[in-house]
């Protein structure tokens, strides 16, 4: 088996991954960056591109930002991480520009005033933007990966972290030629995003966001937190099926006079602009769940009243200027784009608010393993404010790379266990040309269906248990796979490996959701419809012990206790 050695391996090559790799390389480490897709093609690239800074208006400061995140996350973020985040948020855009990005400027060339937007849940204007949205971040990231002097391993699937008491490398499958690589590393940074694709087609995330990082961390013994909190955006495309789940907007993009109308013609929500994503998504989801839908299975976002007021028309102008109406125009047509007719909308899986538990230096609970960006948990809590994910990606990406490089420099050489590596490699080898009854893609589609139906926007005890049973059946089905042979670009072998990771992640999400007997943020339980601060001002942690997932709840630490 081919073996290579590095100081730092970064898994994932979107915003967090490239930033971590660049900063680790700058700190002098020999770095490899692994990507399932071509570099820079993660969710950062396809984001609308809102990027939260702080202190762009005189009344705003890190303390105010901290309060907004705590309110938006409904009290479940780790206060220390949130504090670090808000204190440093000003630097997030600086990291991106240091790598070559340029944010939108005003006429004088400054980032202030009218170029700053405001997403739902923010009390002040904090949103930087980019003329070409996330695509320009993606292009910059691709350049930066080349410019950083790191080894780029594209179209490889990291499927197992190695090491007993500490992570000392990983195994990866190469799509290009169907091999397993053993990669030694002093430290590993997980920066491979969230689990949006577990809900396909009801997601606006890229195909590669199959929750690999959560599964890798669990298998390595690390602890995850807040896995029950998946953020659903309230507004995505309902039809045609090719575009189901594609992003249409968030609360701030409804205009001051937008209203939600259910399938019976009843107005169920107005004044959405200041609300959080989860507050609005919940209303949409409950109406759909109750069957009050439009013929396309969504509900109606009536943006037309905006045209009757000057503020409403101004909201259209500013959204149009930043390209926020592109999707509506291209999918729903000119009249929808001009707000002359209502939009058919449904929630869509957007962001994993929970993830790998990290400390202030991005270290997981397992030595040698770091996490940054969406794959990590703790900064946000039960929901996330618009624009904060990109800031987190660059801020924590940069920090994690630096720290991982420093730790790796203090270590001797690492070597993955060759016997275990060979065992794993022969397990992958056995997949090629296997003639069982189930294609991986069929099992993946089953998993995605049960995730959306039972672990999606509205949940119940019964449904979550049914999901866990279905996961068992899918796991059993995966014992009998049908996989094509051939080395070159064997996507079915990759999918078989992804399926294992999707199952582990789905299970962690469903178990955490079952544990939390209340509704809060992105987690809505029909059987526990209210937020219950007396019982549930707690974080839920999940960790693997033997073959079992161990769940525990712990009170959210207070800032005083932490400092």
């Amino acid at each position, binding site marked *: 088996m081919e073996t290579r050695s590095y100081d730092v391996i970064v898994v994932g090559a979107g915003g967090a991954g490239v930033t971590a790799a660049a900063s680790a390389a700058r700190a002098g480490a020999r770095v490899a960056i692994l990507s399932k897709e071509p570099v820079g*093609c993660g969710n950062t690239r396809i984001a609308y591109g809102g990027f939260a800074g702080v202190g762009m208006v005189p009344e705003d400061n890190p303390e105010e930002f901290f309060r907004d995140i705590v309110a938006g996350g409904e009290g479940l973020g780790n206060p220390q991480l949130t504090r670090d985040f808000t204190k440093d948020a000003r630097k997030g855009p600086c990291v991106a520009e240091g790598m070559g990005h340029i944010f939108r400027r005003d006429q004088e060339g400054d980032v202030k005033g009218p170029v700053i937007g405001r997403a739902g849940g923010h009390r002040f204007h904090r949103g930087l933007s980019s003329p070409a949205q996330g695509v320009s971040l993606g292009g910059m990231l691709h350049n930066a990966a080349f410019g950083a002097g790191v080894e780029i391993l594209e179209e490889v699937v990291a499927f197992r972290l190695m090491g007993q008491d500490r992570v000392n490398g990983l195994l990866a499958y190469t799509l290009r030629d169907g091999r397993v690589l053993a990669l030694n590393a002093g430290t590993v940074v997980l920066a491979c995003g969230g689990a949006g694709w577990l809900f396909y087609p009801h997601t606006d995330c890229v195909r590669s966001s199959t929750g690999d990082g959560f599964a890798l961390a669990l298998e390595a013994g690390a602890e995850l937190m807040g896995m029950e909190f998946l953020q659903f955006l309230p507004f995505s495309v309902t039809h045609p099926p090719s575009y189901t789940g594609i992003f249409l907007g968030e609360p701030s993009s409804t205009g001051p006079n937008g209203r939600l109308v259910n399938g019976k013609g009843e107005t169920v929500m107005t004044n959405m602009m200041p609300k959080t994503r989860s507050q609005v998504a919940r209303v949409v989801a409950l109406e759909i769940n109750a069957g009050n839908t439009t013929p396309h299975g969504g509900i109606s976002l009536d943006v037309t009243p905006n045209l009757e007021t000057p503020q409403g028309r101004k909201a259209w102008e500013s959204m149009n200027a930043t390209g926020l109406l592109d999707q509506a125009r291209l999918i729903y047509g000119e009249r929808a784009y001009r707000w002359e007719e209502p939009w058919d909308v449904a929630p869509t899986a957007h962001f994993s608010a929970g993830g790998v538990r990290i400390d202030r230096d991005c270290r997981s609970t397992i030595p040698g393993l770091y996490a940054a960006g969406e794959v990590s948990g703790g900064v946000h809590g039960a929901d996330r404010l618009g624009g904060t994910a990109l800031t987190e990606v660059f801020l924590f990406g940069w920090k994690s790379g630096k720290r991982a490089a420093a730790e790796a420099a203090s270590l001797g050489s690492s070597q993955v266990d060759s016997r275990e590596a060979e065992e794993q490699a022969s397990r992958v080898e056995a997949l090629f040309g296997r003639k069982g009854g189930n294609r991986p893609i069929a099992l993946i589609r089953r998993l995605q269906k049960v995730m959306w139906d039972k672990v999606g926007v509205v949940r119940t005890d019964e449904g979550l248990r049914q999901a866990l049973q279905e996961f068992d059946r899918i796991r059993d089905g995966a014992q009998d796979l049908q996989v094509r042979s051939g080395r070159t670009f064997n996507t079915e072998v990759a999918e078989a490996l992804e399926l294992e990771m999707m199952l582990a992640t789905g299970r962690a999400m469903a178990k955490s959701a079952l544990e939390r007997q209340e509704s809060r943020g992105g987690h809505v339980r029909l059987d526990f419809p209210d937020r219950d601060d007396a019982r549930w001002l707690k974080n839920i942690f999940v960790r693997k012990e033997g073959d079992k997932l161990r769940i525990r709840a712990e009170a959210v630490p207070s800032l005083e206790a932490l400092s």
Partner: protein
Amino acid sequence: MKASIKVWRFDPDNGDKGNLIQYQAPYQEGDTVLQALLDLYEQEYPVCFRFGCRFKKCGLCAVEINGRPRLACRTPLKDGLTIRPLRALPNIRDLVVDRDPAFSVLLPYQPWPAIGEPPERLPRLTEPVEHQRLMACNECLGCLSTCPTYRHDDPSCGGPFQFVKLAQAHFHPLDRMDRPAQARALSIERCGSCLKCRCLIGIPIVKMAIQPLLEGAHQP
């Protein structure tokens, strides 16, 4: 309903030379070519193709449809379509091409600003409109298939994609390298009167990348 489409199949592991195979793809109103490929993939023809975001941003699903490069996610499915890989790049398997040559030819020229420590604050600067437009490039590489002279195996021959990348750097306010000279090293002079290149998402490549590099106009 079904749509009859032809899809390029090529399996290098079988010593195969590749050919077009006709399929009946399920069809619903509003379907895209990408949806047809996904449907075929699920229905027991493991045809290989890349995709990511399903809505024109990741650039991964560029293929040739009836002889012209298109994003599969933005092309309506119709009866009689022929779907092939991008001709400008080496075919790896089915619709998947080798993207590496498009980037490796650029590496000696480092078309990016050097990565430094993050600045303390965002500098006052003006982003030229050309930079704003050029940074919308989703790196789908489809433009290379519209260039009559690009050759992926000739390191002295750039194509529209490479010139877009050089022009991105050229118009970056902090870039200090002589990008027009680099473009000449990639034989941009042959673009002179050829206006055939097209961007799949509408970036004016000739006006914003090729002409400025040809004329050697220095950025403001």
